[in-house]
C-alpha cells in the first residue's frame, strides 16, 4: 500500500527515533512511504489559535501536495491528525471559504480538492486497523509480545472531538490502540489515563498543570501493572518520556516507566531489533522492555 506520508515536525526534531522506527517498520507492513518533505508544520493548534486562515492555508497546501501523489495521506502524530482534521473540516464546510484559501496556493499551482471520503488523512493507528487490518497484522507478527503489559496512551487529538474525527463512520477508533497491542500478542492494560491529556500543550505556560497530568497518568499505568506505555503521538511522548524525571517532582513519587512510540511497538513484534528502532534513545531507559522481548525470542 502506498501512502503520502506526513511525518510531522517532532518526529524529525526531538523524537527522531519515531521517524527512524517508522521508516524501519514500513517495509514490514508493505507500506510504501512517499514522504511529504516539502510540507510545513500543521500548526499543532497553536497557529490556529493565532490565525485560522493562516493555518488552514498551510494545511491546504499540505493536503494539495498529498493529493498530487494520488494516494491517501498518512500521519504518525495524534496532534497532526487533530490539527489537520480541524482545518479540513473548515475547508470542506464552505465552498467560498475553500476557494479563498485555495487562491493563496495558486502561485505554485496547488489546489485542495474537497474529497469527502475519497481521499483521507489517517493516523497510522487508524490505517493499521481500517486499511491493513488486524488479521493481516497478526499474520505478520514474528515475535508475539506475550507477557508484555502495555498501557495505551492515545493522545487527545485523535479521540476528541469525535464529531470531527470520523467517529460517525468508525465509532470504535478510541479502542484501536488496545486492539493493536493485543494483535501484537501483548496485553493492553486498563488504567485511568489512557484517553486523557499528557499536558504537553501547556508545558511552557502552566508547568505544574502540565506535569501533574503526565505524572498522574504514568503513575496510574504503573499501579495497573504496566511494563511500558505506547503512544501514537510524539508530543505525548515528549511529556511522558522526556519530561518524566521532572514530572516525578510534581506527583512526588518515583516513576521510571518507559514509553514506546507505536512504530517501535510494531517493530518489536514484527521482528526488528530494539536498536534499529532507536529504543536506546529514550530518556527513561527501555532496558526492561528489551529484556522481556529478548526472552520471548529465546523461548
Amino acid at each position, binding site marked *: 500500500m502506498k501512502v503520502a506520508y506526513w511525518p510531522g515536525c517532532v518526529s524529525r526534531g526531538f523524537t527522531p527515533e519515531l521517524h527512524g522506527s517508522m521508516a524501519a517498520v514500513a517495509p514490514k507492513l508493505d507500506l510504501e512511504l512517499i514522504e511529504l518533505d516539502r510540507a510545513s508544520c500543521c500548526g499543532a493548534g*497553536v497557529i490556529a489559535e493565532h490565525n485560522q486562515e493562516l493555518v488552514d492555508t498551510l494545511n491546504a497546501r499540505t493536503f494539495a501536495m498529498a493529493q498530487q501523489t494520488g494516494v491517501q495521506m498518512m500521519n504518525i502524530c495524534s496532534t497532526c491528525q487533530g490539527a489537520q482534521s480541524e482545518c479540513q473540516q473548515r475547508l470542506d464546510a464552505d465552498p467560498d471559504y475553500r476557494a479563498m484559501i485555495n487562491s493563496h496556493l495558486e502561485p505554485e499551482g496547488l489546489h485542495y480538492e474537497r474529497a469527502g471520503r475519497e481521499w483521507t488523512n489517517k493516523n497510522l493507528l487508524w490505517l493499521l486497523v481500517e486499511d491493513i487490518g488486524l488479521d493481516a497484522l497478526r499474520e505478520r507478527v514474528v515475535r508475539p509480545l506475550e507477557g508484555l503489559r502495555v498501557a495505551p496512551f492515545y493522545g487527545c487529538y485523535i479521540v476528541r472531538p469525535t464529531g470531527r474525527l470520523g467517529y460517525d463512520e468508525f465509532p470504535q477508533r478510541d479502542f484501536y490502540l488496545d486492539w493493536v497491542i493485543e494483535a501484537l500478542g501483548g496485553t493492553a492494560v486498563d488504567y485511568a489515563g489512557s484517553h486523557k491529556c499528557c499536558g504537553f500543550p501547556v508545558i511552557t505556560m502552566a508547568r505544574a498543570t502540565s506535569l501533574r497530568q503526565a505524572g498522574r497518568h504514568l503513575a496510574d499505568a504503573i499501579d495497573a501493572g504496566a511494563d511500558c506505555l505506547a503512544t501514537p503521538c510524539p508530543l505525548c511522548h515528549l511529556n511522558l518520556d522526556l519530561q518524566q524525571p521532572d514530572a516525578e517532582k510534581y506527583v512526588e513519587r518515583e516513576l521510571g516507566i518507559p514509553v514506546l512510540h507505536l512504530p517501535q511497538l510494531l517493530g518489536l513484534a514484527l521482528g526488528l531489533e530494539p536498536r534499529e528502532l532507536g529504543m536506546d534513545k529514550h530518556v527513561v531507559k527501555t532496558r526492561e522492555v528489551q529484556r522481556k522481548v529478548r526472552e520471548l525470542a529465546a523461548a
Partner: protein
Amino acid sequence: MTAFDLKVRRYDPESGESAYWQDVSIELEPERSVLDAILKFKADTDNSLGIRCSCQAAICGSCGVRINGQSRLACNTQLGEASEELRSSDGTIVVEPMGNMPVLKDLIVDMDAVHWKKVQRVVPWLLPEGDPPEREYIVPGEAMIDVTQSMACIHCGACVSACLSMEVDPEFIGPAALAKAYRFVGDPRDSQTEERLRDLAEDPHGIYDCTHCFACIEVCPKDVAPMSQIMRLRRRATGDYGIKDSNNGYGHGKAFVDIVGKYGTLHESQLVPRSYADGSLIKSQVRPDSLKQLAEGLPTVLNGLRSGKVSPVKAIWHKKLPDQDQVRRIYHEVESRGERIELNLYIVGDEAENAQMGPDAGADEPAMGDAADVDTGARSTEEEGAGVQ
C-alpha cells in the same frame, strides 16, 4: 418495554458511610431517558436517591451526571443508546455524579462551590462605559453572531466535570466560566475588553492553563465548544491587544508562529527559550526572569541531549524547509491583510451534513437549520489592532 440494568453511585457525606454502588433494574421503553429510569426507581423503590432535575428537556441544565464515564445530561441520554455504548460492555448503564465538584448527595454535586464561583470570577455582566443611551444600544449583527455560541450555555457543568486541567488544578477558572468571559469580551457594548483579557491572561489559572484537551467540546450538550472560546480569548489577548502575560502565553504563541514562518517546521529547542521571552530569541538570552524560567526547563533539554535523541548540532541548528519561500509568501499574504478571517462552523454548519439533511431535517437544531439565513454573517472578520500597544 425493555429491562435495563443501571449501576448508580450512592454517597451521603453526612451518613459517615463510604460510597457504594446500587444496582437498579427498570423496565422502560428504550427511547426514555436515563433520568426517567432514575425517577421511576425513586418513585417505585427508593425515594432516598438524590438527583437534581427540573425541565426534563435539556433546557435547564440541572441534571448533569456522568453516564458510562461521560459527563452529560441524564434527561438527554436515552436508555437504549446508553446500554449499547461500547464502554458499557455488558449493557449495564453506569451512573455517577459529575467530576471535579464535591458530592453533596448521590448524584447531586456542589455547583455553587465550583461552577458558580468560577462564573462569578469572570465578572459575568456587562460593564458599559458612560451613561446608558436614551434608547437601546445599537450593536452590529456580526458581533452578536460572534458571541451566540457562548450564550447558548445552560450551565449544566458537564464541561467542568470533564475538564482535564481542572482535574489536576482545581483553581483553573475552567471551560464554562471562560466561555462566559468570551461572551462579554466579544460584546461591543462592554468597555473593559482589554482589562478583562489582561486579567484572564495574567491569572496563572486563566486562559493559559487550558491544556487544549477537547473534553469540554466533546461533552457540551449545547455545542458551546468552551475550548474554542478560550482560544478566541487567547487570540484577542495576543493578536488584538498584544498582552504580554507572565505565563508566557504570548511568548509561546509568538515563538511558535514565528519559527514556522521562518523555517517551515518547528524547532523545539528555540521554542522553549523564546517562549519565556515574549517570543524573542535575543530577549531570552538577557532577560533575568526568562533566564530563570529557562533554567527550570533546562533539565528537559539536557535530558534530550543526554539520552542521545537530540544531537548538540540539532539543538542549535534547524534546516529550512525546501520551498520555505512558499510558506513565507503565505504568511505575508494572510498576515498583511490587517483583518483576520474566521469561519465559524457553529453558524455555517457542515456542508456535508447540510447536504445530507432533507428540507425539514434539523428542525430541532436551530444552528444548522438557520445556516442558510445567516450565510453572510457566518464568516466573521475581526478588525485588528484595536488597541495594540
